């Protein structure tokens, strides 16, 4: 495998972490196509990406958890499903040839592009009745909302539907080496009815453990290359840190348009490479 030089890897990873944090999509979705463009083979790129996802997710989760926004019970219940999914997903990647991976990745990029394009401003409602299973699972909570200036109480619902869907989100994460946070947030929001802040921060917590399950498979397969890992982890973490700080200053619309453009280009590029077998 051609190893790109450090002075190329670090800025690329920095940019991926930066854009990933600003868009809320995570670093992997940019990092993996970028690494393959630098000549890294796609399985190595996936393995390094999922390792770096542990760092970005744990780093941001640490702050959200201490601020009491993350719901640990929701997170720890759903983790049971995502980690098994991630192990399966990573195993599929190991067995697969590169071309279907390119095409699947491109398809997921297109899906994210569509989701971002259609993302509306839906308001959250707390009035949904909780079912018996979700109540038994104690999936409810409250968090201090600084924007509203009060404590928001909420009850999750439909855990029986959220759990198998989370298994699917885990497969995507392990298969493609991404956090798949967008998928997890969607399940939290639309299926389980969690408030947006709880849903994004809890997804963050789940991503770390899910990424670890995937990473362990790739480590055992000998795909974790320290020469790639060191600059990529550093760059992505630093980029994510900067991206989170800058998020408040840039307008949401500008970030969204920029990210839509990048996603579209990368999606088409990956699918073309998959079809042509580059």
């Amino acid at each position, binding site marked *: 495998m051609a190893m790109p030089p450090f002075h190329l890897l670090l800025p690329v990873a920095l940019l991926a972490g930066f854009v990933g944090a600003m868009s809320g999509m995570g670093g992997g979705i940019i990092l993996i196509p970028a690494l393959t463009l630098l000549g890294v083979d796609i399985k190595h790129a996936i393995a390094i990406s999922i390792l770096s996802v542990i760092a970005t997710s744990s780093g941001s989760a640490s702050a959200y958890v201490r601020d009491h926004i993350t719901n640990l019970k929701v997170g720890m219940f759903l983790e049971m499903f995502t980690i098994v999914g991630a192990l399966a997903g990573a195993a599929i990647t190991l067995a697969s040839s590169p071309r279907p991976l390119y095409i699947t990745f491109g398809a997921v990029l297109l899906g994210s592009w569509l989701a971002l394009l259609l993302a509306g401003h839906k308001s959250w409602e707390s009035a949904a009745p909780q079912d018996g299973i979700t109540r038994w699972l104690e999936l409810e909570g409250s968090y201090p909302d600084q924007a509203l200036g009060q404590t928001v109480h909420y009850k999750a619902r439909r855990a029986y539907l959220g759990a198998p869907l989370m298994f699917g989100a885990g497969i995507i994460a392990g298969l493609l080496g991404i956090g798949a946070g967008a998928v997890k947030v969607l399940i939290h929001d639309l299926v389980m009815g969690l408030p947006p802040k709880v849903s994004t921060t809890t997804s963050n917590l789940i991503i770390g453990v899910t990424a670890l399950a995937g990473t362990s498979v790739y480590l055992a397969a*000998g795909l974790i290359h320290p020469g790639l890992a060191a600059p990529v982890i550093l760059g992505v973490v630093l980029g994510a840190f900067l991206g989170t700080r800058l998020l408040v200053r840039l307008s949401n619309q500008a970030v969204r348009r920029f990210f839509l453009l990048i996603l579209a280009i990368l999606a088409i590029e990956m699918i073309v490479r998959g079809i042509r077998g580059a």
Partner: protein
Amino acid sequence: MMADTLSSSTAVESAQEWRQLKMDVLVGYILLVGVLLSMALIIAGLLWKYIQTGGVRLEYELAGMNLFQFVVSEIHLAALGQIRPRLLINMGIVVLMLTPFFRVLASVVYFLVVLKNWKYTVFTLFVLLVLTGSLFLR
């Protein structure tokens, strides 16, 4: 009498709530310390490599092995006094991988011992066992 039972039950509830909040702090700090330590080890390894060789290119590969074999081989090297840049970088990767692992381990203990919540002890224990199994993959 009524008021007494009521207030004591709220007291129990709020104590439980308080313990739950403490768990947030514990989990949050495990994650924070793990990531910072891992970054520090990787940066130190890269700096050392740079000072030693004038470059930061790392050519070695990790032969396919599980995390525990990896840790044992690293500790073995450290014990032999062979502390080199690549040892620091490898340790950075190991610490990073162990961070969510310890978060789950701490959760099992906390649910079992402090919150005495059997349901979530079982759930987190399942996650811990699956992760342990996957880290032993070879």
